């Protein structure tokens, strides 16, 4: 099955890295296919940043996201620019600390930045909290694969912090 996921936030939150980690988890550890793309531009320095990933059991032909089924939105500007047009059938994970709008589609509120700051004393790992929540809510990749892909991607010395952030996200994203 083809999953189309869009990430948006502001430059510096690790929006592109988030898509790379999910794509990496799918390809390297879940034996799936993934194609990851991003908007490259001056906006990557503070403005609305956007990245996307397609995950599929089959080989990916058209590599771009057409109609995202899953959104991860981490800033108000990112919501307005890249999230507001979400189809009603989509599911959107929102960093409720930073985004005050809500979409028409199903919305999962994750206080990622606030929790990262309060529990882990580092809001820099808010994107990893969101990734944990994304996997708990949608199972686009397995938890084990997400963990391995995070460990592949984060700087040395920050592994424990990032795994704690993932764990926090897994709990925040758990659906009843």
């Amino acid at each position, binding site marked *: 099955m083809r999953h189309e996921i869009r990430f948006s936030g502001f430059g510096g939150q690790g929006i592109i890295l988030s898509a*790379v980690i999910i*794509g*990496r988890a799918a*390809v*390297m550890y879940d034996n799936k*296919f*993934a*194609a*990851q*793309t*991003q*908007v*490259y*531009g001056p906006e990557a320095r503070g403005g609305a940043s956007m990245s996307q990933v397609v995950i599929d059991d089959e080989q*990916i*032909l*058209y*590599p*771009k996201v*057409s109609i995202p089924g899953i959104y991860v939105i981490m800033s108000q500007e990112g919501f307005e620019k890249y999230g507001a047009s979400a189809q009603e059938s989509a599911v959107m994970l929102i960093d409720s600390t930073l985004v005050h709008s809500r979409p028409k589609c199903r919305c999962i509120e994750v206080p990622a930045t606030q929790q990262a700051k309060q529990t882990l004393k580092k809001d820099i790992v808010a994107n990893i909290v969101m990734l944990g929540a994304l996997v708990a809510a949608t199972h686009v990749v397995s938890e084990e694969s997400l963990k391995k892909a995070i460990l592949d991607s984060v700087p040395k010395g920050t592994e424990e912090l990032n795994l704690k952030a993932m764990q926090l996200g897994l709990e925040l994203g758990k659906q009843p």
Partner: protein
Amino acid sequence: MTRLEFWQGNTACAEGALAAGCNFFGGYPITPSTEVAEHMAAKLPKKGGVFIQMEDEIAGIASIIGASWTGARSMTATSGPGFSLMMENIGFAAMTETPCVVVNVQRGGPSTGQPTMSAQGDMMQVRFGSHGDYAVIALCPATVQEMFELTVKAFNLADKYRTPVFVMADETIGHMREKILVPDSVEKTGRKPFISGTPPFRVTDPDLIPGFPAFGTGQHVHVTGLTHDERGYPAATNPKLHMALVQRLVDKIENARDDMADYDVVNPDAEQVFIAYGAPVRTVMQVMHDKKDNNVGFLRIRTVWPFPEKALAKFKNAKRFLVPEMNLGQIAREIQRHVKVPVVSIAKLGGELHTPADLVTALEEKA
């Protein structure tokens, strides 16, 4: 054996160069090709090679021409404005029969245009951009896997034909990350050996390619962009010699057109046939997969230059060819030269890849 990776196209290009034994990179970083230089800067010195960031793209290509004459497998990578700056020395490399690889990760032009967006606007520039008559080899990857494989192939073709070879990628493939299976080793073919004591540009073989007398091997070679005789000495006012030299430079590549033609044919009996190279290949593949219609054919081209014209004749029932390109129909016009049926250009500018809907609309429009 292969190993699994999740790489960006530009990383795969640099890794392909390293696998092919590239030992010299000279260039000037420019979006969207920068990651090629970045990766080579990190990896090449550790493998005993040389990475030099030159003062501009003119110096970048000059440096790889010089390196090649010492026997190095040399490469540069650039995009639009940098590619324009390289044009004069590309002619110099063609005239002096210098093997080298030039990667162009195409972005929107003209001028500085769209640095971060995708395009295929340099397909005619690569063929005709330098002055005078010459021929080129240009390869277009459509997957991250092909960024690796066609870069390896570019080094082999450059050595074999003693000519600059171009990897004409685009931002879409250069910046996309996807699955790649990286081989442990790759096939490497070297340059034709030089017979000591013979004039350095004397050609005796029917392939019209002279042996390569690398600097530092005891040969005394004069390398000049001026029209030269078989000794390499200037003979710029000799009309017959100029005619013979330029004709040979063109023929050594054009005569090998069928040998190096690299393409796939899908549904050869179809009446409507897509032709694509580079990123639009991916959209055509999606449309072919979704429609499952045997009356829609597809010619997927990897060697755009020399253009594999015989491939067109494989579609005997073709009533029209549809050519999606991220330019205003550069290769569509080349195709129209070879066929009698209409060629429809599905041109898209702006930096975004054709969507499947774009192609379905064109397919369903009445001729």
